[in-house]
């Protein structure tokens, strides 16, 4: 599993395609946001915008996760490693990538339209937890979309209903944190999304082998 994770990082490091793609995406969406939203728009608009951009950016980042591998490499992977390991390496890779991505997005949005509130650090924590859960759901749905041999639109159709729970819990938590609730008060939202992430990991562990072994 660690070898696979290293392998994924290496592949990414060689081309840096996905990184630059997401960076450009985050940069341009934040810039567009600064054009349409006034500076210091208030907590609810700010966090709504943040989660919205995060949702689309993570879908774009994950949509080609399983597709850029040809048939031959698929067989190669299958002989070398267990499907659970493949899923977890993807999950970890996407999770780490998601952390990086939302940190970038958060920083850029702060730069362009100003920090959301004085409690930005606890908002940031909620967003980080949400990002890992989002990426977890996307790892499995991108695998399903790729195995069904379909395009990006299928990815969006499959992911949106399943992402909305994570999004709603995360958004609510971010709002409460931004309005000044300490982590002791908003802990249940953070816990809710952590539980979602755990659930997704368990389901992926159980279901991925069936998807993988065609």
């Amino acid at each position: 599993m660690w070898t696979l994770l290293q392998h994924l990082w290496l592949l990414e490091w060689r081309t840096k395609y996905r990184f630059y793609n997401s960076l450009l995406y985050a940069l341009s969406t934040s810039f567009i946001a600064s054009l349409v939203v006034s500076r210091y728009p208030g907590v609810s608009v700010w966090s709504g915008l943040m989660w919205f951009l995060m949702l689309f950016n993570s879908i774009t980042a994950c949509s080609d996760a399983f597709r850029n591998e040809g048939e031959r490499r698929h067989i190669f992977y299958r002989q070398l490693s267990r499907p659970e390991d493949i899923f977890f390496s993807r999950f970890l890779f996407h999770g780490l990538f998601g952390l990086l991505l939302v940190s970038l997005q958060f920083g850029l949005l702060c730069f362009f339209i100003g920090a959301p509130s004085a409690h930005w650090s606890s908002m940031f924590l909620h967003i980080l937890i949400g990002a890992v859960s989002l990426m977890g759901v996307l790892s499995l749905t991108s695998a399903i979309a790729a195995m069904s041999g379909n395009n990006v639109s299928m990815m969006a159709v499959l992911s949106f209903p399943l992402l909305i729970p994570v999004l709603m819990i995360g958004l609510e938590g971010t709002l409460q944190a931004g309005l000044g609730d300490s982590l002791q008060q908003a802990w249940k939202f953070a816990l809710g999304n952590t539980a979602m992430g755990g659930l997704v990991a368990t389901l992926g562990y159980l279901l991925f082998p069936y998807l993988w072994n065609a």
Partner: protein
Amino acid sequence: MNISWWKLGTAVLIIYTLVAGLMGTVPRLVVLNETIRNLYYHVGMWFSMLALWTGSLVFSIKYLSKPDLISDLKAHKAASIGFYMGILGLLTGMLWAQFTWGRFWTNDPKLNGTAISLLAYLAYFVLRGSMEDPMTRARISAVYNIFAFVLMIVFIQVLPRLTDSLHPGNGGNPAFGEYDLDRQMRLVFYPAMIAWIGMGYWIWDIRCRIEKLKISTSS
């Protein structure tokens, strides 16, 4: 004559639900008034939907452990009939909401949860429609079905507890059963739930048999 006992029971219970539900005595409550009768139908649709979707989950798991296209067919039909029951539940709920809460659609966590589950099952049907090969279709849609069902159930259970809901029994509202679901109503409510679940099962049974006949006549 070949009549199954459960079909007879369901038919009798449905008639009982319709007659006793519309004509029986109900408590006079502020705001709710006569709309409380909707309890027998609105909640019944949810029970039926959940029962069918649970059945769909069971057949999906069964398919993954032992690939057999009949299980896939059963899972698919259960999901689609559950979907129709969900639509009916949504419509009856919207009517009820209009007369008690004043609007057809409110931003209630239960409503959101329902809307998202229905969307997830729509995605399931789209996913099925996108694949040609029956075995691949069965396998991949079974995986999605299990994934979606578990996430939805957790979400529907968790979210109303995190935020306030207008529904009874959530967000500090007392549940119906606590003081206003009186004995008279219970006498209709429990049979009604069994009746609607039986109805869903019956439709599902017929649909599965039709599909099986189609398969056997075409091959």
